[in-house]
C-alpha cells in the first residue's frame, strides 16, 4: 500500500488497474477525459488495451465485446455520453455482461455547464435503459471512496454478471485527496465463475443452482451465444411468456436479493440523532458540515452518506434510520433520490432538500432550509 494525493478521476483510473482492468474504450467528454488519458498511458504497462472509439455508442458496445473476450472492461462518460450508451446497457443487462461505467455527472440538462457539477442523473443511472430492471449504482464522495468503490464495482459486476455504474460528479472528479493505493495482493478481487461442464453441456444462461450463470468466453470452444432477444438457458430466442417470466425474475432477483451484500454507507452522530441528513456523492460533504452546524445550534442532527444507491436496500435503510424522527434528503438536484427514500421509509416524515448549485452547495443553505422543518 502507498499513499498518493489524487483527484477522484485518477483514483478511479488507479483502482481500475488494481481491479484487473484489461480493456477500456471511450470517447472524450468533460469532466471524465482524464480517466481516459491516464489509462491510455498506464494500462498498456499492465497488459491492457485502451482505444478511443468514434462515439460513446461504439465505446460501450466495444466494452461489452471485450468482456465476452474475458477481459475486465470499463468506460467512463458523463450525461450526454451516458444517454447514448443506454441502449447498449440494456444489452449488457439481458446478456449478463460484467462491465463498469464510471459516470461522472455534470450540470445538465443537455450540454448544461460541462465543467461544473450536479446530481441530476441519479435516477437515469439505473432507470435510464429500457427493460425495467436494476443496475447497481455506487456513489463515492471523496477520492478515497472513488478508489475503493471502483474496485467494489468491478467485484460486483463479476460476481453478479451485471453492468455496474460508478456514479461520481464533477466536484469529486477534480478534487484532490489522500488516497491509499493498494497492491492487487492487498485487495479481495472477484472474478466471474467459469463453467465447470464441457462445452457440449454448457448453457450460457443456466444459473445452475444459483441466480448467476457461469460465463464462458469467446475463443474457448464453448460456442457461446450472446443474445439480445429474450432467450432460454441455451441462449435460444424463445418468445414465450414462461421464458420471459423466468428470465425477468432471475435478472431482477440476482440484483435485488443481494441488496444487503451490496449496501454500503457511512454516518456521523447516528447513535444520537433526531434529524438525519441523508445524502450521497459530493453533496455528502455539505450534509456532513450542515449536521455539525445544526448540532452546534442544539439540534440532535446527524448525517448519513449512502455509498450504494441502487438496488435500494429497503430493510437496511429502514433499520439504519429507525431511531430518528425526521429524514432530510439533501441532494444537488430537484429532489430525485428523495422519491426512492420516501417510498421506503413510511413510518416518519421524509423531507426533500433540493439544492441547485454548480459547485458543492453551502452547508448554511442546507441549515436554512432544514430549520424551517424542525
Amino acid at each position, binding site marked *: 500500500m502507498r499513499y498518493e494525493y489524487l483527484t477522484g478521476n485518477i483514483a478511479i483510473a488507479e483502482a481500475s488497474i488494481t481491479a484487473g482492468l484489461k*480493456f477500456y474504450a471511450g470517447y472524450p467528454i468533460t469532466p471524465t477525459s482524464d480517466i481516459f488519458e491516464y489509462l491510455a498511458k498506464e494500462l498498456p*504497462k499492465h497488459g491492457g488495451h485502451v482505444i478511443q*472509439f468514434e*462515439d460513446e455508442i461504439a465505446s460501450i458496445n*466495444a466494452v461489452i*465485446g471485450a468482456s465476452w473476450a474475458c477481459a475486465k472492461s470499463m468506460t467512463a462518460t458523463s450525461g450526454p455520453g451516458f444517454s447514448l450508451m443506454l441502449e447498449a446497457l440494456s444489452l449488457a443487462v439481458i446478456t449478463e455482461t460484467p462491465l463498469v461505467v464510471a459516470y461522472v455527472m455534470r450540470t445538465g440538462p443537455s450540454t448544461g455547464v460541462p465543467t461544473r457539477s450536479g446530481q441530476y442523473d441519479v435516477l437515469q443511472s439505473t432507470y435510464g435503459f429500457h427493460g425495467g430492471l436494476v443496475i447497481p449504482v455506487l456513489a463515492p464522495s471523496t477520492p478515497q471512496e472513488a478508489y475503493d468503490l471502483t474496485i467494489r464495482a468491478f467485484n460486483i459486476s463479476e460476481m453478479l454478471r451485471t453492468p455496474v455504474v460508478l456514479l461520481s460528479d464533477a466536484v469529486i472528479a477534480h478534487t484532490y485527496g489522500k488516497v491509499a493505493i493498494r497492491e492487487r495482493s492487498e485487495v479481495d478481487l472477484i472474478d466471474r465463475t467459469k463453467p465447470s461442464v464441457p462445452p457440449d453441456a454448457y448453457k450460457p444462461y443456466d444459473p445452475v443452482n444459483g441466480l448467476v450463470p457461469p460465463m464462458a468466453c*469467446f*475463443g474457448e470452444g464453448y460456442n457461446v451465444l*450472446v443474445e439480445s432477444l429474450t432467450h432460454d438457458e441455451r441462449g435460444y430466442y424463445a418468445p414465450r411468456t414462461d421464458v420471459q417470466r423466468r428470465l425477468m425474475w432471475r435478472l431482477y432477483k440476482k440484483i435485488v436479493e443481494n441488496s444487503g451484500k451490496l449496501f454500503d454507507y457511512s454516518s456521523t452522530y447516528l447513535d444520537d440523532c433526531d434529524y438525519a441528513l441523508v445524502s450521497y456523492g459530493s453533496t455528502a460533504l455539505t450534509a456532513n458540515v450542515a449536521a455539525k452546524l445544526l448540532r452546534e445550534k442544539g439540534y440532535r442532527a446527524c448525517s448519513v452518506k449512502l455509498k450504494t444507491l441502487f438496488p435500494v436496500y429497503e430493510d437496511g435503510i429502514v433499520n439504519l434510520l429507525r431511531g430518528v424522527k425526521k429524514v432530510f434528503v439533501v441532494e444537488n438536484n430537484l429532489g430525485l433520490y428523495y422519491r426512492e427514500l420516501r417510498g421506503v421509509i413510511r413510518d416518519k416524515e421524509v423531507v426533500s432538500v433540493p439544492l441547485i448549485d454548480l459547485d458543492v452547495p453551502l452547508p448554511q443553505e442546507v441549515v436554512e432550509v432544514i430549520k424551517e422543518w424542525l
Partner: protein
Amino acid sequence: MAVGHPLDPYLRTDRIPTMWCPGCGLGVVLGTLLRAIDRRIKEGLLKREHIAFVGGIGCTARMTLYPLFDSAHVIHGRAIPFALAVKVVKPEMKMIVVGGDGDIAAIGGNHILHAIRRNADILVVMVNNMIYGMTGGQLAPTTPRGLYTTTTPYGNPEKEINMVKLAAALGANYVARGSITHPHLLEQVFYKALVKQGLAFIEVLSTCPEIFGRHIGLRNPVDLYTELKKRVVVKTKPSVDESDYDWEKGFVIGEFVEKDEPGYIEIYRKYISKAFGGGEE
C-alpha cells in the same frame, strides 16, 4: 433417420429451419460462407474455436443464430465495435460481422466508416436486399432511387449509397461484391476474405421477394431471382467507378480492391511493443 447435410457440423441443427422466408437469399449467403470456412479449416488456416459471428439487428444479423461457433446477436448497428474489441483482446480470433444494409450502412454507418479507416481486422459481410425486410419494407440507404417503399410511397427521391466505393475510398484491404445469384463466385470471395488481414468488406446482393419483390411487382421468388440475375454483370477486375448501381443499369460484381496493407491489430501491437520494448504484453 434424416440424411445429414455436409455443413451440419457447423450448424446448430436444432435451430433449423431458419426464420427466413421462402425465396430469401440469406440461406445461400450462409451456405457459401460456411463452405468457405470449411475449406479454410481443412487447410489449417482457421481454427473453428477461433471463429466468431457478430450481427446487429435484421434478417441478416439473425444469421448469428445458426452457425455452431461463438456468436453474438447484439443491438442494431453495433456489431462492429463489439467485434473489434474481441479482436483486440484476442487477436487469434477471426471475427465475421454479418449485417443487412440497414444494420451496416444506415444505423451502423459511423462504425463501418471508422472500422474501414482503421483497416480493422474484421470480415464484414453486408447483405444488400435494398430494403428493410424485417420491419416490413421501409426505405434503406441502398434502395435504388425511384423505387416504392412503405415510407416513400411516391417513389424514393434519395440517391442510393454505394458501400463498395466508400470501403475503397477509406482504404479497406479487400472490397468485393457478390450476388446470391452467383453462389460459386460468392463462396470464392468469402474464401479469399477469410484469411485477409485488415478490413475485408463484401457486399452481397440478395433477394427479398416477400418485401422488396412484392412492392415492385416481383413477388414470385423465381421472378425476383431472375430479374436480379439479369441485372448482375460479372467482371474479373472491375474498377471502383464501375460499382455504382441502379435498378435499371444493373450491378457489377467482382473484386474491386485487393491489397495487403498491415491491419489495425498489427500496427497497434507494433506501437505498444515499441513503447515497452516488446515486453509486458
